[in-house]
């Protein structure tokens, strides 16, 4: 079963006609306490959590709609091994310099460290049984993970993105996906950055040059197509 075309910018998405849940995955990026919860990494750096939490409610609605049509749902988590052996030394140095050292103790356990409370996905958009989880050491979701293999094995060619932060982990993943030939859609109200203007610019960067990294749409446009709007 396929659905219609999403009213997106700068072109109706997907380019090849209609949303097919069998070939599409919803990718939810880094909805972790460390990025949108009190006491996590982003909070420790002093950024406004309202910006990174803004997309939680619409993302929860999108998750429900995608689950209802049996679309593959993938969640990613950025975090390092407890011994930090997968953390590049410059990344570690920068985090300590800004006062939010990776692996250091914080209100939510050790910052950006696997297995800690801050590394967990927040309850609003938590994975359910059977959904795929990708643990990644970097900003992108393809590098040093099995994401590409999982997608190919399932015959998935189209990706719909939610998550945080727009200009860093979402962009790095979406750009890599686009370079690999996946047809990408970013849901503009299901994402946020540590700075609102940077968020807006990150949306523009997807759409420039005719949709150089894919397309952007409000979640309502996707929900309408899936019959949930």
């Amino acid at each position, binding site marked *: 079963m396929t659905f219609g075309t999403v009213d997106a910018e700068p072109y109706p998405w997907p380019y090849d006609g209609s949303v097919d849940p069998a070939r599409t995955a919803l990718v939810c990026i880094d909805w972790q306490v460390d990025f949108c919860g009190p006491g996590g990494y982003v909070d420790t750096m002093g950024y406004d959590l309202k910006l990174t939490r803004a997309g939680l409610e619409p993302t929860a609605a999108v998750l429900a709609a995608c689950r209802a049509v049996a679309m593959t749902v993938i969640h990613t988590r950025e975090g390092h091994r407890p011994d930090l052996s997968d953390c590049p030394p410059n990344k570690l140095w920068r985090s300590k310099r800004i006062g939010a050292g990776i692996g250091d103790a914080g209100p939510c356990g050790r910052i950006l460290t696997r297995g800690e409370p801050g590394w967990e996905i927040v309850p609003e958009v938590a994975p359910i049984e059977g959904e795929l989880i990708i643990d990644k050491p970097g900003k992108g979701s393809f590098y040093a993970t099995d994401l590409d293999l999982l997608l190919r094995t399932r015959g998935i060619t189209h990706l719909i993105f939610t998550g945080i932060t727009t200009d860093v982990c979402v962009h790095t993943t979406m750009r890599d996906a686009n370079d690999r030939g996946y047809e990408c859609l970013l849901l503009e109200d299901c994402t946020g950055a540590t700075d609102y203007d940077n968020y807006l610019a990150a949306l523009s960067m997807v759409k420039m040059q005719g949709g*150089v990294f894919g397309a952007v749409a409000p979640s309502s446009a996707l929900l309408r197509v899936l019959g949930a709007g």
Partner: protein
Amino acid sequence: MVNRTHVPGTRPYPWPYDGILDPRRLALVVAGGQTWFAARTLDAEEALSRLRTTAKVVRDAGGVVVVLHHACPGPGPGPGPGEGERGGDLVITIAAGDVVVDCVGMSGFSGSSLDGELRGRGIDRLAVGGLGLETAVYSTLGAANDRGYECLALVDACAFHDADVGSRALASITMSGGIFGALGTTTDLCDALLEEP
């Protein structure tokens, strides 16, 4: 005893992070140096001119110049870098010893030998500039950073597609203490390399 040297004036932190500015571990990476990008960016000639000057300093200091050659990414809608299968001819001159890397899409690491070329030469710090800050340069910085490379984005040698979006893209790089690395200028990089004993 290691002599610590930083490029002056970089932000949000003194680059490189460890103060080891060894030209033998440095590559100047030119992204988007092709006709497709030149036709779609502002002040491309100015960026290219600065890259040419910087390339000479990097070569003379013992570093490597890497020029990316972007091809179209797969079967998608294909708006960029499209026009057939490639991003067009190179618009930057290649000198002896420079490395041209074919890549698929916007990131120099996508479907390419770039990581191997760099690691094989013991290079772990990159100064990145080129045409298309918001496209080829930003993609390459993000991918390089995940791989552990210490990156400096050369702000005066990056041509923007759009003035406002480009300046916000630079701002993004400086968030979280330098999320993909640091920002600096070619003149400051060249000064630091020329001072190296």
